[in-house]
């Protein structure tokens, strides 16, 4: 279409493209500019666009006011562990659904699509109770049932360990929340690998498990990277559960920690902007390096909106 387009159309498309790029990048660029300004410069009217006297003091303040390095560490530990666990589980499920001749395949896929639509908000109360130690899922209920049936050798209201303010309280739900989407992405990815590859390996005398480890795993590395990035971004960004489950300052993640810089009435915007700039840096790097893979994965799985 664009090859034979008239000059006017081309100019309009160029203007539109500039607007599109500005729309996507301007807020972030504004944050970076703000983070380089002095607190006094921010309250000046009319406002300045480029920093008059660029300073990196705000970046020092980020680490001085709150344990931001700790937030980064927490986020990294939680997101990386959730990503690794989730990718392994999803790769197994995706392989089964994408390549193997399975009964109930369509039914299972539909169930996974429906699961991916479950609101995370609904998990807040039940998971809070579980992580508080009020119950162990399934086991507590089984014990209560046995008790009502007259078998009183088990304690009623069996509780578990208190997992609030630990990494587990976030890793467990993040794995579950990203799992349906990761499975869908990997299923559609495994479907693209030619079936001949596998049959050739089987003919050459590999058994199924060997085929999987030696032949399929190397070929599927790009798909696994794609799914991993998306799980990582989802986990890094999650706010609701992190806000409610990990309430001690040393266990906050980056998104939650950044909201702690603002006081009741004071908004140190320069410091907040600096914190945001550091906090989204890993995401921006991922985007710059893996843009095509991420888009392929997003459109395959239909992720978050």
């Amino acid at each position, binding site marked *: 279409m664009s090859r034979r387009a008239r000059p006017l159309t081309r100019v309009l498309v160029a203007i539109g493209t500039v607007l599109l790029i500005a729309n996507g990048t301007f807020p972030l660029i504004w944050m970076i500019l703000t983070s380089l300004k002095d607190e006094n410069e921010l309250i000046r009217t009319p406002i300045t666009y480029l920093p008059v006297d660029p300073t990196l003091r705000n970046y020092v303040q980020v680490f001085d006011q709150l344990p931001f390095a700790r937030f980064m560490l927490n986020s990294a530990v939680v997101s990386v562990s959730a990503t690794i666990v989730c990718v392994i589980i999803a790769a197994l499920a995706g392989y089964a659904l994408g390549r193997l001749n399975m009964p109930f395949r369509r039914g299972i896929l539909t169930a996974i699509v*429906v699961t991916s*639509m479950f*609101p995370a*908000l*609904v998990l*807040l109360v*039940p998971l809070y109770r579980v992580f508080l130690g009020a119950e162990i899922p399934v086991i507590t209920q089984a014990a209560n049932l046995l008790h009502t049936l007259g078998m009183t050798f088990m304690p009623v209201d069996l509780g578990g360990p208190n997992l609030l303010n630990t990494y587990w309280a976030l890793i467990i739900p993040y794995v579950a929340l990203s799992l349906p989407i990761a499975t869908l992405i990997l299923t559609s990815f495994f479907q693209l690998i030619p079936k001949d590859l596998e049959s050739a390996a089987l003919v050459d005398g590999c058994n199924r498990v060997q085929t999987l480890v030696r032949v399929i795993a190397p070929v599927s590395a790009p798909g696994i990277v794609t799914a991993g990035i998306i799980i990582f971004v989802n986990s890094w960004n999650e706010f609701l559960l992190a806000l409610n489950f990990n309430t001690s300052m040393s266990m906050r993640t980056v*998104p939650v920690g950044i909201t702690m810089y603002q006081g009741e009435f004071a908004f140190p915007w320069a410091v907040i902007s600096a914190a945001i700039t550091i906090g*989204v840096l890993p995401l*921006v790097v991922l985007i710059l390096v893996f843009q095509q893979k991420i888009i392929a994965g997003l459109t395959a799985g239909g992720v978050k909106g």
Partner: protein
Amino acid sequence: MATTAPTPYRPAGFWRRLRQGNPSEAQLGFLMLVPAAVVLLVVMFWPIVQVVWQSFHFERLNLPAEGRYWIGLTHYERMLWGSEMTWSLSNLLGWRLLALAGVVALWWAVRRGSLRRSTALWWTLGMLVMAGLLMGFHPGEGGRWNDARFWNSFSITLLIIVASVAGSFAVGLPLALLANVTSRWRWLVRVALLIPWAMPRVLVGVMFAWLFNSTNGVINDLLRRAGIEAPLWLARSDPAVWATNITIVWATSAFVGLILLAGLQSIDESLYEAAEVDGASPLQRFWSITLPLLRPAIAVALIFRTLTAIQTFDIPFAMTRGGPGRTLETLGIYITSTTNNLNLGYAAALSVALFVMSLAITVLYLRWIYTED
């Protein structure tokens, strides 16, 4: 005798085939699904069963002496019903019943075959939204609702669903069309579409709170330069609704654009060439080729956008903490604050309301997709 009887041929058992490293495809498949099934059952499905069960119980962790006990439908009564509810047309209950009767009539017509199912579906959706908005914007006429705060958050959530989903499509479709024809700067376009998707929603909220700052924000500065009166965006409820929706649209339209872009790229180029030969104008081509063929992508984006809009929490929380006052409190914020007040029983009932809402919308959309295709 019995000991020497030859064993009849049996195919290799499940565990034996597995030990030999050579399970059948179905066996291997189910085995590989086990970890995913366990995680989803324990961390997704079981909590949903639990939250329904919990909603029938009294439990306030700040009153530990009370413990946890069965109170039946009390939470739902508090949430959905009022103490002085009367049956008349003059109050909103009457209008709601009228809407309900209308929905019943619509589906009766569908059963008789005098109305198309898809038409009825859209009317039903519209009526539910209208009834919901009416309900929420007049919470109780003098405190008739037991929980006016629930109806307020319900209507705010509905408003955000309608406004932000429509907005993200209005912005997302042009983004997709542009990204599809741009040949130069392709990587920059991709980055510009991915940044809003990858930003944490809370931080988007914080960022836009600064952009919308009434004295030192860049948006008001641009408005003042253009000679437009700059509103106090986040201090009053009306402009705050706009600011919040604009922020949500910014954060979500790029994702809608990406999904639609994938749909656009799957459209066969030769269709356009044929239409051009037949002398169709660009607008005609858009209406008769692009839009119909984009339908599946639109449906996917619509479902995901609506379901995430129901859960809206991060952005309003970050921008105004659900304020000014409680005027922008979404259902998500209400559930969180109830949980933080340690009233776990009522928070569970509210969660169930949210779950039912998203389930209803999922079913509506799925039926829409299946009836049309």
